[in-house]
């Protein structure tokens, strides 16, 4: 008898899990649809960045020599860091200003 009751309880649990899974599947479909729509908009964009020209091999050699003396890669990393940090701060500052405004 306990086994039968246990099975019934299990079915009830599984029905709940299936309903929840169906909801999650629905959310996933919405996300997938949103992504597909965004991808469609991007693909429909007629304007493209220009292609980057290929450097002559002599320039590549020169870059290697420069990088041997000065860490050019670090400067690029720092540039990326500064840009990201500045953008992040702009977002945070926006939120803080909004919070300050609403508290007054």
């Amino acid at each position, binding site marked *: 008898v306990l086994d039968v009751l246990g099975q019934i309880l299990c079915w009830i649990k599984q029905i709940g899990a299936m309903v929840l899974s169906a909801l999650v599947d629905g959310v996933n479909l919405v996300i997938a649809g949103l992504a597909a729509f965004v991808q469609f908009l991007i693909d429909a964009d007629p*304007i493209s960045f220009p292609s980057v020209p290929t450097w002559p091999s002599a320039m590549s050699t020169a870059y290697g020599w420069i*990088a041997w003396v000065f*860490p*050019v890669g670090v400067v690029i990393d*720092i540039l990326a860091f500064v840009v990201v940090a500045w953008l992040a701060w702009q977002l945070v500052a926006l939120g803080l200003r909004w919070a300050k405004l609403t508290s007054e």
Partner: protein
Amino acid sequence: MRRVGLGLALAIALVGVVGAFPGSASAYTGPVLPPVSEMSTVQKTAVQTRFLHWDALAGDDLTTGMFRGAEAAGAEGAGVGVLGTAVGIPMGSYLVYKLASPITSPFIYRKITGHDSGTYSGPDTYQWRSVCASGCATTSLSSGPTTITSGFVLRGASGGYFYSPPFTGFAGVMHNAPGTEYNGSTCSSPCIKGRTTAEMRRQVTVQPAQASDCVSCAQAGGSQPSSLNDTQLQTGLDAINGANPGARDAPDQAAVTVIADDLAGGSSFVPFALPQPEATETYSQYVQRLRARGWLGTLTVESASALEAGADPASDYASAPVHAPAGVLVGSFPIVWQFDVSAPTPGDRPDPEWPDNPPRINGPNTPVTIKEKPPTTVFPPPDPGGGDDCPCDVASIDFGPLAGIDTGDSFPFGVFGFFSDVLGPFNVSGDAPVFDFTLDCPALAGCDTYEFGPVDLDVMDGYMTVVRGLLTVLLWIGAVWLVAVKLLGFKAGGDLTDGVDDGSVA
């Protein structure tokens, strides 16, 4: 009169000799292979095996001929038909090119551009790379080959390079083998040694091109089929003139001779390199593949107890199917593990996943031992959350589609990719300058021109590494200060001049 008779006899003999080889195309008269439609299933399988596994053969003529047939039959898969425009990859101090696909004939030798550096230390993946642009006969490298005029490089999984200086065919292709020789003479690491045509060609197929590697690829990669139909087999046999001995060259003849021997039930076993097990393959499926290649030896199956005891639940071993071959031991060769218990995550696949020179099954009776993932495996461990008797799995939210949005080069969405492309060439690893120069001697001194060099500054590598390290620290300090003070406006320190002693305090 006797002279005339002798001359006539010689002329007749000459005509007879020439007539025996119409068109003087070939001196071969046999064997003649039957059409595929007349072959038995066993014979067709034998031909198919040869075309699919031609790389196990030895000898340039034989591998060249068999590959010719295999390629015509489609046994080399649907590779990229066009060697598309390559994508530049910073490699050492040079820009090299990763080719779209090296699978189809004539392989990769359409592309000879760029340079290679002997100091490359990038990712350990198989990637064809061109060595040298035209007109770089005096290219000098700080290690490895001193002069490369043309050819290609294949980055090896264990470091070093596969290359061909200059490229005249796969017979001249080299590969690395640290500690051995380079071009017949001793050299410092990384060193390289000769590589056979078959080995090189097989390496070529190791790395299918990725779509992202190609600019004008017709297809994103190639894969070898598992079987060939009658039409394919016939096409392959026709490509090596199986029924037309007079049109054969030496590679054709070598290939046809082996196939004819197979069809006649002759020596069917050809030594071959141990193939890598597939990710989802059980050991019995793997053994079937060995049997298909003529191996008849004794198989011993043992439990991979070391992995069972030491593997991580999140490792590759844990997710492998039951009975998966975890390690293969051939004769007296060292065992080749599919999963490495000493990996950072114990049980993950080793790096490289399969050795460049795997053990060879040299005879039909060579014993093989396979360490399998046992049926009593404790992997993967049961999920402690749901309970085995009543699983209630709920799907998880998948943000993958959003993360997978490809902005490509569209404006303005692809701005980050664009700037990455722009800045990429600048972001190269340092390479010591190597140069030479000439000085014109004054005519009054009675001399002509002095040539100096090559001057190689790599003797200062150690110092420059320290200098770059210090510069890196200083640059980062400056960057943090810049962000904090100029961008974020942090000025908690006040005016530093406030602390100067102006003498007002006794």
